[in-house]
């Protein structure tokens, strides 16, 4: 018992920092979601416990369900499908491409990821703008692009998030693929298995654990994306791209209703937890 406690000592600084600065505020926020806490107005003097009233109000608000739906669309589009598939494809391609290509393409992909979020958001805004680069290119080949940010805001932000986040998945899958033992795939090839079969029946199952972890990490990171969407579309037009973090910001800061804002954040956590459970059940990786 004592030995175990002693061994946990290096965990202490982390535990202290996390407890004070993360767990504390999270619990306070969670509690806050059951109050009418506000930045101004009489409730700011002292908030009152109001039970589930915030949540009930959320569930009666059609904007809320639209926001949940948009968040799920954003998640599936840009994280589950977008970044993971793009990352996997890039990983596979990098294996077979030559070194120069690998490093050039890798640089561009990673640059999009390393750029500070607001710069990436601004670059994406300029790219998808009605008079921006994308429409200019389409125009050059004779196509008339729509006003992406206005007519297809979700598509624009999903593509932008894929652009921004794929590097992470690419690196994960590159490493995971490099550990797939070549003798297994080669013997399958000798046995007559085609490329796609090898991929689907051998390679992918072997990197199951990386896929599951990567899905979880990208999902959780994508859930909290705020600046990218805020700068590109502001959540609009109307509420057509207002995912949950944008809605939480609006409630908490524009309307100064903190209780509602934190209730939304709590729901966000629940969505994340649900997705994670699905991944773990579906992929059944062994975790130590």
């Amino acid at each position, binding site marked *: 018992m004592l030995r175990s406690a002693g061994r946990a000592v290096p965990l202490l600084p982390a535990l202290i920092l996390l407890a004070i600065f993360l767990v504390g505020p999270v619990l306070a926020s969670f509690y806050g979601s059951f109050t009418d806490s*506000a930045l101004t*107005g009489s409730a700011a003097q002292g908030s009152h416990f109001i039970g589930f009233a915030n949540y009930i109000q959320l569930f009666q608000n059609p904007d809320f369900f639209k926001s949940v739906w948009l968040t799920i669309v954003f998640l599936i589009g840009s994280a589950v499908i977008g970044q993971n598939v793009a990352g996997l494809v890039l990983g596979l391609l990098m294996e077979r491409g030559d070194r120069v290509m690998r490093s050039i393409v890798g640089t561009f992909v990673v640059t999009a990821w390393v750029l500070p979020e607001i710069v990436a958001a601004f670059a994406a805004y300029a790219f998808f703008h009605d008079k921006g680069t994308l429409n200019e290119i389409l125009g050059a080949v004779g196509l008339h692009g729509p006003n992406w940010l206005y007519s297809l805001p979700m598509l624009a932000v999903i593509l932008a998030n894929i652009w921004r986040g794929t590097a992470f998945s690419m690196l994960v899958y590159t490493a995971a693929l490099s550990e797939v033992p070549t003798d297994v795939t080669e013997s399958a090839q000798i046995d007559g298995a085609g490329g796609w079969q090898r991929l689907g029946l051998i390679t992918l199952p072997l990197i199951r654990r990386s896929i599951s972890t990567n899905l979880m990490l990208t999902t959780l990171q994508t859930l909290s994306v705020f600046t990218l969407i805020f700068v590109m579309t502001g959540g609009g037009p*109307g509420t057509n791209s207002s995912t949950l973090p944008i809605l939480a910001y609006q409630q908490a800061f*524009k309307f100064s209703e903190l209780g509602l804002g934190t209730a939304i954040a709590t729901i966000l956590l629940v969505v994340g937890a649900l997705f994670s459970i699905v991944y773990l059940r579906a992929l059944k990786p062994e975790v130590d």
Partner: protein
Amino acid sequence: MTQGSIMKRFATAAALGIAAALVLAGCSAPGSTGSSSSGTIKVAYQKFGNFTQMDTQMKEVKKQFEAANKGVKVQLIPIQAAENDYYTKLALMNKAASTAPDVLYEDTFLIKADADAGYLAPLDGYVKDWSDWSQFPDNARQAGQGDDGKLYGVSLGTDTRGLWYNKDLFAKAGLPVPWEPKTWDDVLSAARTIKAKLPGVTPLNVYSGKPNGEASTMQGFEMLLYGTQDQLTDDSGKWVAGSKGFTDALGFVKTVYQDKLGPTPQQALDTNIGNLISGQWLPKGKLAIDLDGSWQSQNWLPSGAAPWPDWDKTMGWTAMPTQTGQAPGSVSMSGGWTLALGSKSKNKPAAWNFIKLALNKENSLNFDIIGTQIPVRDDVAADPKYSESNPSNAFFAGLVKNTHFRPATSDYPKVSNAIQVAMESVMTGQQTPDKAAKAYDDALKQAVGADHVVTK
């Protein structure tokens, strides 16, 4: 004792020590605001983008104050944030005694909510003994009142709204200059004439949609609504749903956008259309009529963001008419800012002295000129220096007599948001004015509670 357990203890101590040291370091970090000693007062205000006038003004007042009050220092805290973020930052600062400012630059429309929240100190006792107070007329005094009738802020200045128009473009289109529309139809027909005679020029701008926030609600919607028989609230203070005026105002917005008399919806939904209008469209003759605020010319002054030397030769101004020309004939909305006293201030007398100094005649006059504000003090309004400083000043100041104020309750932001949503849906053609008005009614009931709403 084994080497292992000594190391363990050392490690534990080290870990705790690191944490403690960091906290302590934070405490003694320079600039971390401890509780304000009686020797310093903190003055918080907004400084953002082109709006640097308050910063200039406060620096000047600080000099004067410190010269006259040895022993008291002024710490200026310019908050570099736009509208909502400024309110948020200020509210956060107000929540805690150690960061609460002594003097704050407070929007009139938040006074009631902030007074309710206990952030502001009542000023009735102080103004009683202030000789200058007689220079503030009644409606200016009311601007700083809380729900309990006590005074919480003293007005720095206010603003009004009207129609700016390009005299050259009007002449080219054969429209009369000076222009004096008497009804909504007059405004729309002038816009149609421009559209017919001057293709390539946007006839009329009415701010609309969520991205432009309060500009859409106040310069756009409320300038229309308050020109009808209806308003946002009735005399008892309840919110009004289902009024004809509301639907008519939405109808005007729909006409402007669907009949292509205004910017395209995409242009209107750009958060920076305000900058475009004052910086490019108006000076370059791309926009003929702009329903906007009295401060527009601020941009064109030599000290402004888009200096335009002969702006007053090209631009004309007139009042926005009521719907059918009914009394009082014109409509305007007013906002305005005040200086308020923080309730957690540890040196209220010194803070009050600062406010008095900042709002005396010379300082008020100076701020109203550089900030293109409409003065609230009678003596400043009457001062020839004010009317001479800007040709449009006298006109816009004259609109104050028919002006309206927003219902400044803490629910207002949600209602304003619902208005913007309604404007957007008729602007883009997604809903008819009737449907959008109905949606507003539903959102209104949800936002303020059904028992605060009266349906017409």
